[in-house]
């Protein structure tokens, strides 16, 4: 069986045979084939099963509108479900399989559904499967779910790579058919930056599928000459295999380029590229889509759209049948008859719903005017048609033309609605187009070649002129201008058999009528109730027909009945393409500190902190549990000295004559009088009075401050301060710039911190307790002249400093610090030990500063100065935020010291049932304190500060635990703060 349906002509390359496999059969096609044309060439027409009734289905169209011929393309993790065979470009070794059956395509067990069709009418599932209640989840739903969907994902990670890109143009021309080619040519000649995008791998649109003549020569020759001129223009970018799938605000279009889908393997290059195209003008030349007619059993393999039958013969040199009938309501259907006959394909009959004289002679064919087809025969392929006059004609292919619908999809993407045009019995673009878009050619309802050429040229010229360019109308090539007369005809009402409207979702005319009868009369309700137009083809061939049948049932006209809105994408786009490179480790950037490499050498375990990676702890040989490492780091720090990389804290350089006043406004506590050379803790509120962030700010000179923020809030705080600066207090002389990246910063903490630092701080700087007291700061040099900043601040509660050097020296400094610390047994400590020490000290951090808590909750209410205007001060006074029984941050320890506290436990008074009414607060942070030898926690509890010493239950039902805890001061360690001043 070797391409026995291949006939002469077409633009396939017969010198390049390609092998492929379909459902296990080895077959051959040619370069230039689609999978569909190659299947038809091999006389394979039954290619899939429908969604609901599992009816045999064949290839219906020759384009992206295909509802039936969906295949599973490629194998293993490369497999791609629901691929339309009609647009899948054939390559050597292509592997495809049919979908949606149990058993085999030929013997599908689920085909039994077709027998039960009377019970599976539109919306049947809303009316049943409700009893007994338990059966829905156990029996009915699993059964329904099992029959869901068509194709199958592999379940494996998509192995291909994808890319994205951004293109900018003056004029985007969508579609490279006759109108698009002329638009691009005219615009391109004006000097405009033009992008011409076409979804096909062979530009030309319908010109490839027809036997038109242009300027007296064949249309393909004309296409080639236009393409060659376009390629020669440096200001024109021609993009094949590129579908413009969506129209977004302000001239932004989404496009998908299939860069390697036509190749056996992608060869390390992106499989697809998702382009964002920024245009000043767009000319939509997307052509038109043919639609069917509803009649009995109009869904069998071999029933095809007439334009598609013609396309297979003309473009691909394939006869879709040996004995073809045509059923049409317009002249265009007759072209299929004449084109096929000219190629030697036998035409059995032409059935035209219009009365009057036949528009053409077709040798040997039965001509039936004013007639229709009421039924078809054949199980896995059509074998005969029955006419309204009772005659039966044996056929193996039926070409149906119900007229053409302009592809108005992109005109509706910004919710514009199309208008109905009686002349062509179709929707055409409405007046409310996306800004900058114009429409030309068949997409606008111009259904003759001459009109397409003319309109395209005009639209291209107009777009260029709109942009101030000089565009002269290109010479319009001569072509046929014969309008295709149509008399609307939608539905053969005398058909007894089911008449399909939506082939993929198995929606029939009866379903539409039933929905209407049951009150689902708005088009939107109809669509939802019947699922019309909701399959993978989005009803491209079905929507207008469905509307027509609804209109017929309602006794209204189509425009009175309505239209459905088209949403992006025009054709489906892989999720991976939208993701581009952002997956796996590349999902988001990773920020590393200058000390990262050193930490990695120490075997640090890293943890994500926002975009940063931070050392969480530094295991030593022999340590098997993270707690061992963390306990050791805490104890060593408290005993001697530890070093922690705190580079990730946000740093903001604040300068200006009014910098102090500015800080006084953005912080709740006072900053105006902070002396030079000093650091102060700052509490920043949101305007709603909740705590936004905290940190320290140092005054380096009269007009120069450096602020630190938490790692998590660095970006948000900077943005907020720019808002305050630009929008609230625009007259202040204050300037902000982030210095987070500029410095590597380390905390050096512990009783020996000073001694350690004295070894590296250059001798001219005195950092003794007197010269450099707690909360002092200064610009110094270290290690023989490297500039540094030193801050005497402490999060750990120890004598501690933070030292910052330019990032280039960050690696050097940590090595120098560790070397200098060797004699003190200095340890590096990670974020866990940092957290343990701050909990021991009762310092709030992220779990406490969660955006739901106030300064008062934190026990810092008095820091909110009422003597000045600062962000958040007024709204923090609202009554519910100042209740007597409000939350307060306190410490907790287990009554049984051996027990471990859990974050997220809720506090319930002893003896009360754990319920919402008895819920008094929750545990925010817990740690094992190696210093104290037991578990400790911080948490918010009602009237907490009045309840020190009380025992309460920390209920943790989600982990099945409930333990008694004692409410204590949050300052577990060195409550008087003596160590920091040592």
């Amino acid at each position, binding site marked *: 069986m070797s391409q026995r349906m291949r006939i002469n002509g077409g633009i396939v390359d017969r010198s390049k045979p390609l092998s492929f496999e379909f459902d296990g059969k080895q077959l051959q096609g040619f370069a230039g084939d689609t999978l569909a044309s190659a299947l038809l060439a091999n006389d394979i027409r039954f290619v899939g099963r429908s969604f609901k009734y599992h009816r045999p289905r064949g290839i219906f169209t020759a384009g992206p509108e295909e509802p039936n011929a969906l295949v599973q393309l490629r194998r293993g993790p490369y497999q791609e479900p629901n691929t339309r065979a009609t647009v899948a470009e054939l390559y050597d070794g292509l592997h495809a399989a049919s979908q949606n059956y149990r058993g085999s395509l030929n013997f599908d067990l689920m085909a039994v559904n077709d027998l039960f069709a009377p019970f599976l009418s539109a919306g049947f599932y809303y009316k049943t499967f409700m009893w007994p209640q338990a059966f829905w989840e156990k029996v009915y739903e699993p059964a329904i779910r099992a029959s869901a969907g068509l194709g199958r994902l592999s379940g494996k990670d998509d192995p291909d790579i994808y890319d994205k890109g951004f293109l900018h143009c003056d004029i985007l021309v969508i579609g490279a058919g006759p109108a698009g080619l002329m638009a691009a040519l005219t615009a391109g000649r004006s000097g405009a930056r033009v992008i011409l995008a076409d979804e096909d791998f062979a530009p030309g649109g319908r010109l490839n599928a027809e036997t038109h003549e242009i300027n007296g020569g064949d249309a393909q020759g004309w296409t080639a000459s236009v393409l060659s001129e376009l390629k020669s223009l440096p200001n024109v970018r021609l993009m094949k295999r590129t579908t413009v799938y969506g129209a*977004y*605000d*302000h*001239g*932004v279009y989404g496009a998908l380029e299939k860069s390697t889908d036509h190749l056996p393997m992608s060869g390390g290059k992106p499989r697809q590229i998702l382009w*964002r195209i*920024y245009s000043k003008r767009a000319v939509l030349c997307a052509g038109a889509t043919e639609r069917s007619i509803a009649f009995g059993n109009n869904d069998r393999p071999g029933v095809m759209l007439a334009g598609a039958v013609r396309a297979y013969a003309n473009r691909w040199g394939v006869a879709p049948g040996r004995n073809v009938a045509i059923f049409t309501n317009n002249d265009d259907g007759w072209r299929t008859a004449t084109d096929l006959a000219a190629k030697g394909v036998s035409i059995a009959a032409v059935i035209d719903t219009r009365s009057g004289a036949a528009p053409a002679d077709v040798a040997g064919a039965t001509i039936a005017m004013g007639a229709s087809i009421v039924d078809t025969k054949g199980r896995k392929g059509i074998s005969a048609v029955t006419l309204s006059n009772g005659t039966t004609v044996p056929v193996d292919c039926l070409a149906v033309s119900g007229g053409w619908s302009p592809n108005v999809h992109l005109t509706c993407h*910004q919710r514009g609605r199309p208008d109905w045009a009686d002349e062509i019995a179709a929707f055409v673009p409405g007046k409310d187009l996306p*800004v900058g878009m114009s429409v030309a050619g068949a997409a606008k309802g111009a259904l003759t070649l001459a009109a397409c050429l003319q309109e395209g040229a005009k639209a291209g010229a107009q777009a260029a002129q709109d942009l101030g360019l000089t565009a002269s109308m290109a010479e319009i090539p001569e072509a046929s201008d014969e309008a295709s007369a149509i008399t609307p005809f939608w539905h053969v009402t005398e058909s007894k058999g089911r008449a399909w409207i939506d082939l993929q979702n198995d929606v029939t005319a009866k379903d539409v009528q039933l929905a209407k009868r049951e009150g689902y009369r708005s088009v939107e309700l109809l669509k939802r109730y019947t699922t019309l137009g909701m399959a993978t083809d989005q009803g491209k061939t079905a929507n207008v027909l469905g509307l027509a049948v609804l209109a017929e049932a309602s006794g209204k006209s189509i425009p009175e009945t309505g239209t459905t809105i088209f949403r992006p994408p025009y054709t489906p786009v892989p999720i991976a393409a939208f993701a581009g490179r952002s997956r796996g480790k590349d999902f988001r950037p990773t920020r590393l500190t200058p000390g990262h490499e050193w930490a990695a050498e120490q075997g640090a375990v890293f943890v994500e902190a926002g975009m940063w990676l931070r050392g969480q702890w530094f295991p030593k040989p022999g340590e098997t549990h993270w707690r061992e490492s963390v306990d050791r780091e805490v104890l060593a720090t408290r005993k001697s000295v530890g070093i922690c990389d705190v580079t990730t804290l946000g740093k903001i350089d604040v300068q200006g004559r009014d910098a102090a006043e500015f800080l006084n406004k953005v912080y709740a506590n006072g900053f105006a009088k902070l002396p030079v050379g000093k650091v102060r803790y700052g509490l920043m509120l949101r*305007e*709603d009075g909740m705590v936004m962030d905290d940190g320290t700010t140092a005054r380096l000179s009269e007009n120069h401050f450096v602020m630190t923020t938490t790692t998590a809030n660095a*970006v948000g705080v900077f*943005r907020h301060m*720019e*808002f305050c600066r*630009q*929008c*609230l207090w*625009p*007259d202040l002389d204050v300037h902000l710039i982030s210095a987070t990246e500029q410095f590597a910063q380390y905390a050096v903490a512990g009783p020996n911190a000073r001694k350690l630092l004295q070894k590296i701080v250059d001798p001219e700087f005195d950092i003794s307790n007197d010269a450099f007291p707690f909360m002092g700061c200064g610009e110094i040099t270290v290690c023989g002249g490297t500039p540094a900043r030193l801050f005497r601040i402490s999060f750990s509660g120890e004598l501690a400093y933070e030292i910052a050097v330019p990032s280039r020296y960050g690696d050097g400094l940590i090595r120098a610090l560790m070397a200098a610390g060797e004699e003190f047994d200095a340890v590096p400590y990670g974020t866990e030990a940092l957290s343990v020490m701050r909990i021991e000290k009762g310092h709030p951090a992220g779990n406490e500063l969660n955006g739901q808590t106030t300064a008062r909750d934190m026990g810092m209410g008095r820091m909110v100065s009422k003597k000045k*205007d600062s962000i958040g*001060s*007024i*709204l923090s*006074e*609202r009554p519910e935020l100042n209740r007597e029984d409000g939350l307060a941050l306190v410490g907790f320890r287990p009554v049984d010291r051996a027990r471990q506290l859990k974050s997220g436990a809720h506090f319930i008074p002893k003896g009360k049932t754990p319920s919402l009414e008895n819920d008094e607060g929750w545990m925010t942070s817990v740690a094992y304190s190696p210093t104290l030898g037991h578990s400790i926690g911080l948490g918010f509890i009602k009237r907490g500060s009045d309840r020190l010493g009380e025992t309460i239950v920390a209920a943790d039902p989600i982990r099945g635990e409930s333990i008694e805890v004692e409410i204590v001061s949050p300052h577990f360690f060195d409550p008087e703060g003596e160590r920091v001043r040592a």
Partner: protein
Amino acid sequence: MIINHPLLGPRDAAEFYYLGDASLLDRPDWQAPDAADKFYEYQYLRDNAAGEHRELWYHEQGDRSWLIVTRDTLTHDITKVELAHDVALAKQADPANTGREG
């Protein structure tokens, strides 16, 4: 969306951070007798216009300007883009000038 930045020309809105209604510039006087009510209204109540809307966008991945963009919330059409700093200064010079036309 594209925001036509007054200094930089058209930029993808993805470079910006959106805050909300430009009335957030009109921060009340903290010492006014009805400051509590005024701050409540300032912080929480919105016109939420279906149509022309003046709103604050921050060019975070750009020049760090806060902009006031006049945009139609029904169509997304943008008719005016100003530097918020300029508007805020003008308002300070003349408190009656809210930047709104008419």
